[in-house]
């Protein structure tokens, strides 16, 4: 409770978290912190242990060992005071099929001491047009919006999103991203899991790359790129039509050389591009390396 009152304390603190199911060691010593107001992502392939980690934080699973604090509470005992301040979007969960969107949002609002306005939440989740539709008639994308609405109606400080856009078409993904950005602007803390790199890059202040139940790297998406493979990559098509790629720490000098040589010879530089190592490069580098490790085979089942 002391930590709960201290606004500088992290929203989530995880130290040496372990979780086993029988012989399967799904989470193997994870450490991370999420600051208040931060959007934090757990990024990793399927079965990395992301959902297990999040479900320990949500109070659905008890940990095998380690220290976990969520808004100053231990989620294992599922105190109601904590559940009132947390919103959860599960990977896959149903609702009362014969209730309308509006009825469900209004019913859920009644669970919380200081809910948000039902209309406002319906609007925020993009459900205005389908507020009188029965839950069983909603499309996949609309059902996901309803998941958001039900998680947000209690006006939570902290929101868990477990693979919020898996299975979405591109337009629905953009819409979901807008909703998540709006939450961040409201000062909410968000912990999301994803196996989409672009999603982590687009939404997260910081990302932890998870694989085989361990965190391989943590940092801001841009910094993760700089930290591990710092060189710029310059590529162009040469006279024979082949793509040439050079890595350099000083792209300005290299470009100057290339362009002046091309101008001198009176030819163009087809397909010239300069890129920094993306999160994708780092992710692939880290997760591919880890496949060689012995735990990759055992640690397959992550949820």
């Amino acid at each position, binding site marked *: 409770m002391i930590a709960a009152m201290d606004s500088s304390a992290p929203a989530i603190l995880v130290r040496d978290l372990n979780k086993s199911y029988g012989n399967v060691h799904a989470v193997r010593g994870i450490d991370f912190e999420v600051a208040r107001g931060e959007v934090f992502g757990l990024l990793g392939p399927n079965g990395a242990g992301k959902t297990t980690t999040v479900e320990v934080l*949500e*109070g659905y699973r008890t940990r095998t060992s380690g220290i976990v604090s969520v808004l100053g509470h231990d989620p294992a005992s599922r105190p109601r005071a904590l*559940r009132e301040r947390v919103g959860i979007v599960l990977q896959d969960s149903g609702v009362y099929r014969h*209730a309308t969107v509006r009825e469900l949002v209004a*019913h859920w609002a009644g669970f919380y001491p200081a809910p948000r306005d039902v209309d406002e939440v319906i609007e925020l989740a993009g459900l205005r047009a389908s507020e009188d539709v029965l839950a069983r008639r909603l499309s996949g994308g609309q059902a996901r919006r309803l998941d958001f609405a039900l998680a947000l109606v209690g006006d939570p400080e902290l929101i868990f999103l477990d693979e919020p856009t898996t299975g979405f078409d591109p337009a629905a993904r953009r819409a979901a991203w807008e909703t998540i950005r709006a939450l961040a602007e409201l000062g909410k803390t968000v912990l999301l899991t994803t196996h989409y790199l672009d999603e982590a890059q687009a939404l997260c202040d910081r990302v932890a790359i998870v694989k085989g139940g361990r965190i391989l790297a943590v940092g801001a998406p841009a910094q993760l790129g700089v930290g591990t493979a710092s060189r710029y990559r310059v590529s162009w098509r040469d006279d024979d039509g082949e793509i040439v790629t050079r890595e350099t720490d000083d792209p300005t000098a290299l470009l100057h050389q290339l362009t002046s040589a091309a101008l001198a010879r009176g030819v163009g530089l087809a397909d010239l591009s300069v890129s920094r190592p993306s999160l994708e490069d780092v992710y692939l580098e880290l997760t591919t390396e880890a496949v060689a490790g012995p735990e990759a085979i055992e640690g397959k089942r992550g949820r």
Partner: protein
Amino acid sequence: MTDALALTWRQYRLERKMFWRNPSAAFFNFVLPLLFLALFGTIFSGSQSDLDVIVPGIAGMSIMTTTFVALAMNMVFLREQGVLKRLRGTPLPSGAYLGGLAAHAVTNTAIQLSIVIAAGAALMGVGLPDNWLELAVFVVAGVGCFAALGVALSHAIPNFDSAPAYVNAIFLPVVVISGVFYDAENAPTFLRDIGEVLPLTHLIDGLSAAMVTGAPFADHLSDLVVVLVWGAIGVFFAIRGFSWEARRG
């Protein structure tokens, strides 16, 4: 406390609303037992002694369908759909949730019993119950017993596809052995012995005393005890095996 009661009430109202919007649930809960009542009423229309057995028998069966059958099916469905998991992540106390669900089942029982009693009195010459207090005691015990057993059974059912098989494999033999459709006294000894162990036989005995024979409560205390013992077993397993999550592969 008032907060928990208010939440129970809200949950109850939602369950009622959902129930009426799902025609198949409403059908199985109300129309089926009444159909049985009409059928057997017609078959035995010449014999008052048979009708005197059928009406409390159908009343007992109604209690079992509105609690045991309905809850076992419902819990498996809600578990499989992930509704239980989602609710568990909210501040709704589990007591308020289960309270709302139980009150919903009790309402269905009350509606259905009223129809059975009214039909028995108006159309089947059974008359109104002689002992309302005795009736109330047995109905409450029966509802508690079969509701708990229904929740307990739901834990043993692996998925919703197999739920009707599990539920009917228990419900149909129990209904027949317990003498819903005939006087259990006339059954072969081995069936009667099995029936003597089952709660529905004793519930029907108690209902029969309250509704038809007017036998004093004191004569049926042992029936009440059997129902309560089954209820205690049901509560134990209902709580012990409770799972909010669908089983994985």
